[in-house]
């Protein structure tokens, strides 16, 4: 049973690995770009799910970590040294400090107030970056050189970046799974179910929440850094609340608390974004909004919720019933 799941997982992974090789022939190179975005945002979403899905604290400010990772990487590669590892490390470093401080400030509240606080901080960072001319103001940082994997191998090439990000995604997923399956993960879920009970059991809930906040931020930091490998500029809108909001939506669409759900939500939204803006040039946002509304009405738990509620035999039975009825009618 477990083997079957592992088989599906590995198979899917293999597909993703082989994708760039066949892409130029089967379909356009453009899809690599789409998948790249899915991988990058996916890494962030894994961290987000730890905080929001498992621990129950929906953060409307994850763009903070994303943006900080991006800005630090940009400044590092432009002015210091364009080693990708240096960018990642420095990004993680600054985000650890920022995450620690933010955790102290934000974790005094729960649920709706936590939403507001994280949202306010996200916008605060946006406005600060937008106004601070030292880091570029509204224009952001431009002219960032491509980072190098090791001196000599540049990560500017798209396919190389694809595999690099995929590798990070796999590692991130592995880490997230380990966290979720560990004792720490169970305590997180416990906090979500009933924080008072966890406290009674002797756990320091605030400390644990601050830790998971920090950890989820680190995922976001790596995502932001990878984004700059891909797009050589960093606008202040990487901190904007609309980006934070889109993370929440991606998680909700896919199904929070499953790790796979937010990844799927990200993939769905990025694909749909592209498809809809091709088919419905001017009304794609309306269609997307409509899809969200339908999703909430009929499957509030997202795509993973759909999976839980339908069963293959059920669908087949309904289909065959319909067919039989149809055939009977035509006979008469």
């Amino acid at each position, binding site marked *: 049973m477990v083997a*079957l799941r592992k088989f599906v997982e590995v198979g899917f992974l293999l597909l993703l690995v082989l994708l760039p090789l066949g892409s130029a022939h089967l379909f356009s190179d453009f899809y690599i770009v789409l998948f790249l975005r899915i991988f990058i945002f996916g890494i962030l979403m894994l961290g987000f799910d730890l905080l929001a899905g498992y621990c129950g604290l929906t953060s409307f400010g994850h763009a903070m970590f994303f943006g900080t990772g991006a800005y630090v990487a940009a400044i590092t590669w432009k002015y210091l040294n364009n080693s990708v590892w240096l960018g990642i490390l420095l990004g993680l470093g600054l985000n650890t400090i920022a995450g620690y401080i933010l955790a102290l400030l934000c974790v005094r509240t729960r649920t709706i107030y936590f939403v507001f606080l994280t949202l306010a901080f996200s916008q605060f960072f946006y406005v600060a970056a937008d106004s601070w001319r030292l880091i570029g103001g509204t224009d952001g940082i431009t002219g960032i050189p491509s980072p190098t994997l090791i001196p000599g191998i540049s990560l500017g090439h798209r396919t190389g970046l694809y595999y690099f990000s995929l590798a990070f995604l796999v590692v991130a997923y592995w880490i997230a799974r380990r966290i979720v399956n560990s004792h720490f993960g169970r305590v997180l879920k416990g906090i979500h179910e009933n924080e008072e009970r966890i406290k009674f059991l002797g756990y320091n809930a605030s400390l644990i929440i601050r830790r998971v906040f920090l950890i989820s931020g680190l995922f976001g930091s790596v995502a932001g850094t990878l984004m700059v490998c891909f797009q050589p500029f960093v606008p202040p*809108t990487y901190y904007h609340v609309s980006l934070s909001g889109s993370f929440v939506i991606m998680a909700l669409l896919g199904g929070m*608390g499953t790790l796979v759900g937010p990844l799927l939500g990200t993939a769905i939204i990025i694909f749909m974004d592209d498809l809809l803006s091709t088919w419905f040039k001017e009304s794609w946002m309306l269609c997307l909004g409509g899809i969200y509304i339908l999703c909430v009405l009929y499957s509030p738990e997202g795509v993973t919720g759909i999976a839980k509620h339908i069963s293959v035999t059920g669908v087949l039975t309904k289909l065959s019933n319909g067919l039989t009825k149809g055939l009977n009618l035509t006979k008469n």
Partner: protein
Amino acid sequence: MKRNNNGSKRGLRKNLMNRRDFIKTIGITGGAALTLGIPGSFSLVRAAEPEIRIGHATALSGVFAVGGPLLDKGLRLAFSLSKYKDRVKFFLEDTQVKAEVAVQKALKLYEKDKVHILVGPIAGHESAAVSAVLTPMKKLLVEAYGANSYLVGKDCSPYTFMLGHTTYNLSVPMAPWFLKNLGNKVFLVGADYRTGRDIALFFREAFEKIGGKVVGEFYSPLGTTEYAPYLSQIRNAKEKPNGCFGFYGGSDCINFVRQFEEFGLKKDGYIYISSIGAFSMNVLGAMGDAAVGFYDCFHTVPYMDIPQNKTFMAAWQKAYPGEMIDEFGIMGFDVGVCLVKALDAVGGDPTNTEGLVSVLHKIEYESPRGKIRMGPNNGTIVPMYARKVVKKEREFRHEATFLGFFGTPCGPQYEWGECKLGCPST
């Protein structure tokens, strides 16, 4: 806090997904993606056709949304009058005046829609980002707006062409005009991003060199709707300025100018001078009479009395009856005319990017603005006018004062540096 009967907080179920659900989820998503996505892209990959695909990434929403659709109309009009009218296919995308969206759309147009030429975004920071991404890919970018002097300076690229203007030639020629016609005291304003700040900065340098004085300045974030806190600073300047110069465009311009009048500044004799043709016909329509008597700086004047413009106006009014002649429309047409001429020179083969690039580098063409010549740093040399907004028989018009022909110089002595392709002598 809502609670269940057993006291636990209500929340979404987040059980660990079991194997079956996992497979089903993957199956649903994968199936949906395949059915929707792959066939869509297959249809785009066909054998090379003699089709000319032109991508246009512009502002259809956001601060400069007034311009995008008009640029597009002008572009299509130019091609519909050419011999390529049956071969050309346009792809329009919205950049929302955001640099990262502009880059996304540019990549999408080139890689998914397989366009041959990209007509680029309106805002200066967008054009810089798109140029930086497309140049290493050796893809063509043609800009009607995108005023950014760096793109004809150190960030210049053999593949990027600025057909309209840059922040240099929209600000510096105004300095001597201002001194002669208004006075020697200026208050600088503008939208707080690279383009707005550069226009004010270059004007200041030129103005102070000829003996002018800056009595105050402020810059407000792009997209500000409320100028009340700023306008009082103009009144409180240490000396009364002869005019306020600086770039506000699109919806910023509408809000600023309306509030400029509402707060009594216009009545008390303060004048506002904008740039980049901010007082375009459609914007004037939205502003009411608030802008009458103000000035701006641009290289094209709708209803100008020259033969090329008359041809254009007739064609526009025939193709789009009832639609106002507008600067954005003229510039879209200008880009179209230029591209048609370039395509003629490479025998109508849009896939010959290198050929197009070398032709565009030295191109001269007849635009509704007059005769336009490309400078060595891939920026055009254009006639510049100081335009005054007037009202004639209930319609807005511009009274234009010719300032001279201006390209954009480059070199180490300028902020934007030197373009490795060469610098014009102007």
